[in-house]
């Protein structure tokens, strides 16, 4: 992306509005959050600088640990549904010959519905008064003893708040995987088949490694998305009963906007952002294979050499 225009004034006129907007709406809040995380403040009155006290409090806060573990469970369920089911469906679709576009369009519908609507839908499915569809089905097939009040039962509530989120975006990830899979060169799969690989082997050994990039990127998206999961759990149970289905961001929200602990809330927010960035970095390292790292090192060396040559040439 090397450009050719050199008009400095025009460059600034084109770039600055967006840059200023971006700095103010995204980076100013980040800086403020970090600053807030070192103070104690109830929304009104004086802001008191307390150093690391909020962070110390954070690591002693039992509810925070609950929220952290819940978030991991939530993450596993959401990732499982979105990546595994999404991938499975995408692979199945590649074998279909007719109606793929139509099916893709319909699969996608849940992700264009607002979270509030999704939540209300699931709330009525989980309901006991009137009996929701899940309990009705369980009773109809003779598993009535498993029917329960899904959202108040402390054993089921966490799973119940995770499923709608997983359900909602499965179609989107399917579309992504499908696009990646059909963009593969059919000759390679053909070659694998001639070499005696069956369908399963072709998929695992040939196709999946070839869409590694896409897998990495979607995994990053799902993971960071799940770490910041908020809408559906917040609307469905708001972390309840008690803190049984509390996630990190619902806890942050509660502390800041219901408990007026803006300082402590910001500390949790900073933790969430640090964790998201960490996950992205770890995934990048994991997925960058040895070869690629080697390649990059060589490129770097070559660039250095060229620079040296140029300098000595002068």
């Amino acid at each position, binding site marked *: 992306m090397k450009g050719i225009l050199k008009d400095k004034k025009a460059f600034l006129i084109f770039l600055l509005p967006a840059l200023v907007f971006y700095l103010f709406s995204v980076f100013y809040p980040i800086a*403020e959050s970090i600053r807030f995380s070192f103070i104690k403040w109830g929304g009104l009155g004086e802001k008191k600088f307390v150093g690391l006290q909020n962070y110390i409090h954070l690591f002693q806060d039992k509810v925070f640990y609950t929220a952290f573990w819940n978030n991991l469970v939530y993450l596993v369920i959401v990732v499982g549904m979105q990546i595994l089911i999404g991938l499975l469906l995408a692979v199945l679709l590649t074998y*279909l010959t007719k109606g793929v576009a139509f*099916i893709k369009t319909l699969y996608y519908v849940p992700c264009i519905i607002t*979270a509030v609507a999704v939540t209300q839908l699931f709330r009525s499915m989980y309901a006991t008064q009137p009996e929701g569809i899940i309990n009705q089905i369980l009773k109809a097939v003779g598993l009535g003893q498993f029917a329960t009040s899904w959202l108040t039962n402390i054993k089921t509530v966490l799973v119940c708040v995770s499923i709608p989120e997983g359900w909602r975006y499965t179609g989107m*990830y399917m579309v992504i995987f499908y696009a990646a899979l059909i963009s593969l060169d059919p000759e390679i799969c053909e070659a694998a088949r001639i070499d005696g690989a069956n369908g399963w082997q072709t998929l695992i050994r040939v196709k999946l490694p070839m869409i590694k990039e896409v897998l990495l990127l979607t995994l990053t998206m799902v993971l960071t998305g799940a770490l910041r999961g908020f809408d559906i759990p917040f609307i469905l149970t708001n972390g309840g009963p008690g803190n049984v289905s509390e996630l990190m961001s619902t806890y942050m929200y509660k502390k800041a906007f219901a408990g007026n602990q803006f300082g402590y809330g910001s500390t949790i927010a900073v933790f969430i952002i640090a964790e998201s960035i960490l996950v992205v970095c770890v995934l990048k390292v994991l997925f960058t294979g040895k070869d690629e790292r080697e390649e990059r090192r060589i490129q770097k060396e070559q660039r250095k050499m060229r620079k040296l040559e140029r300098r000595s040439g002068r």
Partner: protein
Amino acid sequence: MKKKALKTVLVVTVLFFLFIQLYPVVWLFLASLKPSVELATKPFALPDAPTLQNYLDIFNEGNVFRYMWNSLKVTVISIILIVALSSTAGFALSKFRFRITKPIYAFFTFGIMIPVQITLIPLFCFYSQMGILNSSFTLILPQVGFALPLSVMMFVSFYSFVPNELIEAAVMDGCSTYGIFARIVFPLARNTVITIGSMYCILIWNDFIFANTFITDNKAKTVALGLRDYVGAFGNVNWGMTFAAIAITILPPMLVYFALNKYVTAGMTMGATKG
């Protein structure tokens, strides 16, 4: 023979998941046609006597139109800003020869990793100090800010397909830099504009977290907040009205989606694969 059986299994599986994906949505529309009594006794059967009563109730109450108007305002202004800011910034970052473009581009893309929750507390404090909570501006600012990384990226990647020779030729012909953007580059980016517009139209219309934080006044409520308001006697949710309201308010994004679904999927998949 075996192949045929496999094929059947395949089709059945795909249809089964399709059913799971769609059933709740279809059911929602059916449920909105049921009288409240029927919803309470047998909520999941087909409606015995379909009625538009729920819709009439919604129309009579009239709040839903105010919610939709508020959402529309936020959505339209945000999209105009997103397109204006990112198309120009994308141009600056891809067609100018300065060393600084690369780090700034990286700086924009970094934003994709930032969770929106981080802005809630600082922006809330800022807005309440300025006394502007409950205005559309409170939602537009973060919506546009968080849309910029991806949309700048999409414009940059599109502009990279516009050959530099074309721009050189325009310069030769005496076209100014602004003219190049307005008359040559931007008109070419029509598809990118539609993609970004349709995708963010749906995302911003559906936003819950910003609205829930910055809007408390009934008059300023957007669709996502309004849907939680249909409460009947005894403090229970009035499901009939809720479903009708949901059905009405998801229509605009549905229309956008079915009209422009290629662009929407392209945008969202791009959002995923570039993340």
